[in-house]
């Protein structure tokens, strides 16, 4: 089946200099913002429209965006802030980088609309530090173009609307993708998640009401306002409105970032869009939404559609849309150890279960790979994961636990084989070992 691509966040892709204001405007860019500046839309209407569109937070949690916006205090006469989370760090995820590099104006316009809807006059785009060479200058150039065109600033085009947009550049820390850690970092501190409540809508940046949204979520907003909530909602199935940016990586013929309607069957994504499995090998497993999501074996994922409900029913989640594909030559024990190393390295250290537990997980997995594992270690891994899950301030602890639980649930035999064979992997007999 053919799927229409690049309908929302990537809508300028394929045009020359897709990142410029001129190109963006040729694709309907700033029509929504100009309508707002002309006084044709009020904040309540915008929030209702985004609610009706079914847009859910694309940063991984999937929280309804319009509902989040409605949590901001309406009439408070205090400074309010909008913050965009461009700290794209979830392993496997690399599509926000494409929005920043190739369609940054969609984000600028989306931020302007969101800020107006919530009464925020100042916004920051927190971009991960590693993006300083290319995505940051691209985004900053777009912001400058928008200011020069009179689309941002004070009393914009005589509308009485003020909106200032600034870039912030991070310095390397996965935890800063957690929204309250991001705020701490923006205040110039270590990125340690805050205990909640209070939530950012009440006490956010500098203690002021703040909403944090993901890059893709915000870049989707201009199209929703321009084409209507019903159009966006109708692109995907019930509960998963719109398109999603899929970062497909690993053992496929054509890895890439693809914008597709929500609800595309996994097998179509794999075969029609990504050219099938690398070298025609057999699919073993897929992590469907970044490394914090539970792994699904081939026989389950092949029956899934790529949306919130289907992946949740299958025992995983949509996450960030980062689809990591693993073929039959992949050693699941080694993949899990790599994932566990990541959470150990990135734990901020303030909650004991996470700080200590992530290290235990990594060291136990290393012991198994070194041929010194015991059968009791397999249950112990799950026990440690269970003791981290739900016992920490932020979701990093859960994200460290879920891969362990799901790898051991679906691929227990590979761990058992390695323990019984002194560190030998079950895939060692395969002709080519990929991992």
């Amino acid at each position, binding site marked *: 089946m053919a799927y229409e691509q690049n309908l929302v966040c990537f809508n300028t892709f394929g045009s020359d200099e897709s990142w410029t204001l001129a190109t963006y405007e040729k694709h309907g860019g700033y029509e929504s913002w100009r309508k707002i500046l002309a006084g044709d839309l009020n904040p309540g209407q915008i929030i209702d429209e985004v609610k009706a569109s079914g847009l859910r937070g694309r940063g991984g949690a999937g929280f309804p965006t319009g509902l989040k916006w409605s949590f901001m205090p309406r009439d408070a006469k205090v*400074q309010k802030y909008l913050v965009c989370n461009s700290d*794209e*760090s*979830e*392993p*496997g*995820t*690399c599509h*926000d*980088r494409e929005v920043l590099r190739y369609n940054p104006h969609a984000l600028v316009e989306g931020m302007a609309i969101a800020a107006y809807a919530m009464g925020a006059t100042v916004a*920051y785009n927190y971009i*991960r*530090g*590693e*993006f*300083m*060479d*290319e995505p940051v200058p691209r985004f900053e150039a777009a912001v400058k173009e928008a200011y020069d065109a009179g689309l941002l600033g004070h009393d914009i085009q005589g509308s009485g609307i003020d909106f200032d947009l*600034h*870039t*912030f*550049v*991070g*310095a*390397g*820390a*996965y935890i800063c993708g957690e929204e309250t850690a991001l705020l701490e*970092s*923006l*205040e*110039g*501190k*270590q*990125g340690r998640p805050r205990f909640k409540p209070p939530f950012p809508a009440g006490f956010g940046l*500098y203690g002021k009401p703040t909403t944090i949204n993901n890059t893709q979520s915000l870049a989707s907003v201009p199209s929703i306002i321009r084409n209507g909530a019903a159009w966006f909602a109708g692109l995907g199935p019930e509960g998963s409105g719109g398109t999603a940016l899929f*970062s*497909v*990586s*690993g*053992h496929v013929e054509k*890895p*890439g*970032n693809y914008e597709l309607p929500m609800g595309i069957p996994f097998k179509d994504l794999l075969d029609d869009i990504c050219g099938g499995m690398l070298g025609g090998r057999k699919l073993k497993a897929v*992590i469907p939404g970044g*490394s914090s999501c539970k792994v699904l074996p081939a026989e389950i994922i092949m029956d899934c559609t790529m949306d919130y409900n289907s992946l949740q029913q299958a025992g995983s989640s949509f996450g960030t849309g*980062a689809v*990591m*594909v*693993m073929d039959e030559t*992949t050693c699941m024990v*080694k*993949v899990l150890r*790599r*994932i566990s*190393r*990541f959470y150990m*390295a*990135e734990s901020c250290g303030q909650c004991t279960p996470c700080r200590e537990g992530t290290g235990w997980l990594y060291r136990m997995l290393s012991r198994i790979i070194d041929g010194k594992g015991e059968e009791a270690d397999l249950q112990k891994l799950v026990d440690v994961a269970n003791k981290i899950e739900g016992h920490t301030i932020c979701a990093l602890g859960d994200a460290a636990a879920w891969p362990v639980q799901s790898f051991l649930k679906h691929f227990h035999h590979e761990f058992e084989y390695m323990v019984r064979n002194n560190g030998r992997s079950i895939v060692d007999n395969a002709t080519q070992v*990929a*991992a």
Partner: protein
Amino acid sequence: MSYVLTDHVKDEIEHWKSRFPEGRQRSAVISALHAVQHENHGYLTAEQMNAVAEYLDLPTIQVYEVATFYSMFQTREVGRNEVAICTNVSCMLRGADDIVDHVEQKLGTKLGQSTEDGRVFLKQEEECIAACCGAPVMMVNHKYYENLTKEQVDEILDGLD
């Protein structure tokens, strides 16, 4: 020994400070550290951090704790060209470990160490840098190189000054 911030660094810090409300200059710490580290060819000294603290009127601990928390800051002397190879899952599935072995052998150094001549700092195992569809990936002096082969790696490394 004290360190004096250059005019370029001061301009850079002022540029960032102007983005934050009055009295919130602490928000400029990360950008200030990026700027001074860049001038010092890839790492921060205590004197530099003290100078940043003094310029922003902050206790030195507030600068040290940021410098030691974020992975892009180095607080010990390292080689002048930073090479960071991603080894997270997407890159691992596409051969990142072979790239690491190759680079370690070629440079005669290990992850986390610098070459003896101070030319290259091979950064400790790098986490996902969000270019997964171009795996395997490495970052050299902040520039991304994707779909790496050993030949390309050789060419990139040989081109470093």
